[in-house]
């Protein structure tokens, strides 16, 4: 056997790379286009990273962190920005990758060790950005085509992407500044560049226009490509987990149903559905704000959680756990900390939009509170544990 002809292979690879790379003639594969798109992408990924952290730490707050219960729509807005902003970023990322695509064929592929590290980090950035945006798109479409837990993978990959992005920004900063400072008047490519960037912005804007109605009700009729319509579902309200999926369909009709308030209280409470109906009822207008980006507002009627806890004699700084009839599942219970349970808008609701809760909305009783992710608005509530 002869030794493989490494020099020959290298020459052939170089010829292919230079051949392909030299064929990209469009003036739009330029630093100035890449700089402008990079700036937009940096902004979008920063918004996504910050709003993503907000969502993560609202769902998993460390013990010292007390989220406020107002403004009512805070989580609705941050998560809407996260998801709809993420969709709007898809065209920006694809345009950026198209613009710099010729550089994939640069020769030699690595000029030095530091150049190799730089390119490896760009690979991490590209792969991570594609991963976040496309598994995110599939996730809000309920297409779970992977073995990992989406939320956990999405969370850790966010650190990876944002770290690689920071390093990329440091490396490219001088070029971006130079590219953006050059005056358009002296550049014959400027009109073509403006039209190209305008097209990218249009793709981004139309993506928003056809999806944002899933959380911004005035545009609901335009939400032609959104996975949810905030007006569609039992009682005119979308559902995430149905009673059948939660395995509670047979339990919620039980005439022996009781809502108990227990734990660190002066007097335990055990209330039937009829007892709850006889308690003072309050009506509030609050949204369900889903972590998947959609939200829908409704009129909820029920008992104030603060009133129940006062009756039971809970301490003012108590942390409360609301538990569902569900036997398992990550969201069978949720914690309610003082800012939320003291809020008069926080109810154990019995009715929505004027009629008793449908089975899929949590009959007989569900939690509804302001500024709170939908997965924490526990349904089919049977126990309130004070600690």
């Amino acid at each position: 056997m002869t030794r493989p002809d490494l020099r020959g292979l290298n020459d052939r690879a170089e010829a292919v790379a230079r051949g392909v790379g030299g064929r990209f003639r469009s003036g739009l594969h330029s630093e100035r286009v890449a700089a402008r798109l990079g700036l937009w992408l940096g902004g979008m990924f920063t918004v996504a990273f910050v709003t993503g952290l907000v969502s993560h730490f609202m769902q998993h707050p460390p013990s010292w962190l007390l989220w406020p219960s107002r403004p009512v729509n805070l989580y609705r807005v941050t998560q809407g920005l996260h998801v709809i902003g993420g969709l709007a970023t898809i065209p920006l990322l694809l345009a950026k990758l198209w613009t710099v695509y010729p550089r994939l064929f640069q020769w030699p592929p690595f000029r030095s060790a530091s150049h190799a590290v730089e390119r490896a980090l760009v690979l991490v950035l590209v792969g991570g950005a594609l991963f976040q945006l496309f598994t995110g798109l599939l996730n809000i479409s309920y297409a779970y085509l992977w073995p990992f837990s989406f939320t956990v993978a999405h969370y850790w990959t966010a650190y990876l992407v944002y770290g690689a992005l920071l390093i990329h920004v440091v490396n490219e900063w001088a070029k971006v500044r130079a590219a953006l400072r050059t005056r358009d008047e002296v550049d014959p490519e400027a009109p073509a560049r403006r039209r190209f960037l305008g097209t990218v912005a249009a793709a981004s804007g139309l993506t928003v226009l056809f999806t944002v109605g899933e959380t911004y009700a005035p545009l609901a009729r335009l939400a032609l490509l959104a996975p949810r319509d905030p007006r569609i579902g039992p009682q005119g309200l979308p559902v995430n987990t149905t009673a059948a999926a939660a395995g509670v369909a047979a339990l919620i009709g039980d005439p022996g149903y009781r809502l108990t308030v227990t734990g660190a209280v002066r007097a335990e409470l055990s209330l039937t559905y009829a007892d709850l109906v006889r308690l003072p009822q309050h009506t509030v207008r609050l949204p369900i704000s889903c972590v998947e980006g959609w939200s829908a507002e409704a009129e909820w009627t029920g008992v104030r959680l603060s009133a129940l806890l006062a009756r039971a004699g809970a301490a003012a700084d108590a942390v409360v756990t609301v538990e569902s009839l569900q036997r398992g599942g990550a969201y069978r219970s949720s914690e309610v900390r003082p800012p939320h349970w003291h809020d008069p808008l926080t109810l154990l609701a019995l009715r929505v939009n004027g009629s008793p809760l449908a089975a899929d909305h949590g009959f007989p009783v569900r939690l509804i509170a302001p500024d709170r992710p939908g997965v924490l608005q526990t349904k089919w509530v049977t126990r309130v544990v004070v600690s």
Partner: protein
Amino acid sequence: MAAPFQERAAPSRAWRLAGYGAGAALVVTGLAGLAADARHTHPFGWALWFGGLIAAHDGIVAPLVVTAGVLAGRVREPYRFWLRAALAVGGVLALVALPMVLGIGRRPDNPSLLPLDYGRDLLVVLGAVASAAAVAALRDGRRGHRGRRLPRQGAGRGGGRSPTGR
């Protein structure tokens, strides 16, 4: 022109080091989290998606887009720009809608998930994009006949620079 300008605009050494430090810390945090939470992150499946998406983009999507751009380049201006714009915008909207059109996530117990006829909706949207581009192209075409200068297109054959290599 660029070199002295770039040097002056470069971030100071301290900023660079701070940026590299913060970036590296985040990268290490992410990798450590992915590894430590392996029961949930399923590193092999994660790597398959991570690498698979890069391969799908660089090996399939980008070449298809480049080919479509070259084919559209045979059309003369101003129609060429509007054809490329309509293909790009329509392609992105179709890509975003694809998981919904395929209806992979539909569940029989929950009709409020993916409640719309997304195939029909996508056709409506693509029709609107195509119509808007056609109207704009015809408008520009008529202006061109009347002798008004059109903005020069950088995407034309031989009109552009070669990409800046690094």
